[in-house]
């Protein structure tokens, strides 16, 4: 019995020793010899490989089809004047105007959401990765961020409607006859920041953890405090990860529809709520590109598919651009190797 237990413990120990200290080498390239051909495999294995090939090619073809289809439709229906005309209600393509207001709305919402999510998310990530004290609270915060990532955005939207209707926060949104609707750019931006927050936290944290401890030790050795090390050494080194997190979060914010439909009212034009110019817009209702597409799809109220195609094309181009930026940031992060 005792021998078995010791054996078990040894085995467990050996497993953890082989795995935990040395980061595993990446799979994939076997540098010296060519991989064996599949000709000698069993039929079932060869069928499996064929399925893998087919599915891989299918995803490539699918993406190509989506992008090319939207590109063709977009080039057919997008014209410069769409970007500078306000949307109007109407029954035909010529009557309904462009999508200037939704574009502005997307910009405002993205600014508010990232303005909240980026500093808060970075702070949480720094705290979790560098300080982590008090430990129970850190664990709760971790679980919270994870749960936020899993919370359906429609639930976040309903929750936002609940808190922004309350008298305490009512001054942030439009009021008609002292009845607060709980719909404004403030409300939508604040709730969308919760959508972006987990992505920012996860990425910044990964970036910070990828910095080896000797970098920190070098900074402590020259007499820097922990806070100064974080500010001057760690955060600059983790900047590519911060950028990646911000871009991924921004992509989610721009692409979210449910929260915008519930908390922004999805009116065609920006409707100010009265008061000073900028504040009036921010407290008022409006629309974003996503809600514009939703309304103009055949299932929506506007039902102008050509406008929806044009807006979808523009939105996809924005998302593509964000993807390219994430790629560039990732490449910079990989160039900055610690050894």
């Amino acid at each position, binding site marked *: 019995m005792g021998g078995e237990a010791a054996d078990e413990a040894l085995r467990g120990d050996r497993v953890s020793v082989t795995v935990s200290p040395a980061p595993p080498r990446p799979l994939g390239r076997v540098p010296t010899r060519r991989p064996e051909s599949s000709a000698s495999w069993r039929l079932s294995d060869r069928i499996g490989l064929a399925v893998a090939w087919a599915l891989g090619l299918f995803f490539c073809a699918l993406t190509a089809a989506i992008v090319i289809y939207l590109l063709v439709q977009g080039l057919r229906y997008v014209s410069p004047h769409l970007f500078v005309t306000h949307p109007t209600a109407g029954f035909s393509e010529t009557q309904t105007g462009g999508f200037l207001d939704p574009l502005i709305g997307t910009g405002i919402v993205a600014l508010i959401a990232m303005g909240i999510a980026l500093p808060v998310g970075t702070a949480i990530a720094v705290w979790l990765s560098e300080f982590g004290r008090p430990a129970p609270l850190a664990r709760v915060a971790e679980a919270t961020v994870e749960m936020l990532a899993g919370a359906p955005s429609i639930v976040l939207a309903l929750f936002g409607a609940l808190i922004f209707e309350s008298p305490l926060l009512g001054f942030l949104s439009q009021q008609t006859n002292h009845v607060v609707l709980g719909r404004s750019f403030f409300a939508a931006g604040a709730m969308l920041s919760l959508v972006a927050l987990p992505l920012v936290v996860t990425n910044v944290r990964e970036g910070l953890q990828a910095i080896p401890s000797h970098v920190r030790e070098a900074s402590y050795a020259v007499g820097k405090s922990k806070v100064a090390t974080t500010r001057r050494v760690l955060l600059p080194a983790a900047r590519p990860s911060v950028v990646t997190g911000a871009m991924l979060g921004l992509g*989610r914010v721009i692409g979210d529809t449910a929260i915008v439909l519930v908390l922004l009212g999805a009116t065609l034009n920006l409707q100010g709520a009265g008061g000073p110019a900028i504040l009036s817009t921010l407290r008022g209702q409006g629309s974003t590109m*996503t809600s514009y597409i939703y309304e103009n799809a055949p299932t929506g109220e506007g039902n102008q598919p050509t406008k929806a195609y044009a807006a979808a094309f523009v939105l996809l181009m924005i998302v593509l651009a964000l993807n390219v930026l994430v790629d560039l940031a990732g490449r910079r992060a990989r160039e900055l190797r610690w050894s």
Partner: protein
Amino acid sequence: MDEYIPTERGAGWSQDQRAELWLVCIVVGLLIAMLVFVLHAAWPSFSHNGLGWFGTGGRVDGQIQAIFTSGDLKSTPLYVFHAWPLIWSTALITGVAVVIAFGSSLFVAVFIVEFAPDWLRGVLEPVVRLLASVPSVIYGLLGVLILVPLIGNHLITQQEKASVNPTVQLSGYGLLAAILVLTIMVAPIMIAVFVNGLRAVPRNWIEGSLALGINRWRTFWMVAVRTARPALVAGTVLATARALGESVMLSMLSGGVGFAPNPADGLIFLFEPSRGLASTILFNTDELSSPPMQHTLYAIAAVLLFSAVMLSFAGWAAKQPMKRYGVIA
């Protein structure tokens, strides 16, 4: 990292540390407040219906209409609500889409990590990332304008349409379109997580198997995929949560009728329209002004939130016994 500097505790915290602590407190507080708020707002609907809330009975669309109007008339508010068709729709669409996506994602992830030639790997990785970041409303739009007419005009015969006409209309909006598009939406999320997990498998474990003369395909499935099981769980949980909460795309494609598709109908089952929990909230957000309607919608939201929380908990629990394999998801 903490060991390297003298640590001070309690009152000795610096200002920055205290500021960060406050920020985290705010976020944690917000989440707890969210749970309490939503459950509080949902309570009347649950307490009036009891467990019947989750059961069948009557037409759910008519019940929603009655709940909404009873709030306007200043009469006694109605709460009768049996959500089974909505729950069934969500469970069905999410379940089938996640199962299909899991199988294909696993193959694609294995392909990307081990079997794809370098040029194809270079294409597939950005492709997967792009597919994961396309907004759901664009998927919905493409589904409405391409997939739905295709199904409605070519796959469903007039005979089939006539056979169920008094109950539901078969027009292409239905289970098939919803499941197909949802599969495409959640698969990239799974692939990304699976690939990360498979990459983390130590190379020498695989080489050990190869040295025994087992071919690469078998080796990869027996060693790498098994070792990466925590990552498989994590990816599936993430994708299921996304599918559960998907409201916009499903409200565009699933048909928008509170009807429970019946598998006993045979092939027509695939074309039957339905409406899930999340899209029901989205459909009725304009009716939040009516108090009983508000309570009902928050009850639906509470069910969704509870499922999402339970899902991440189940994922966490499933990963515990796998931890000793050593690959962290």
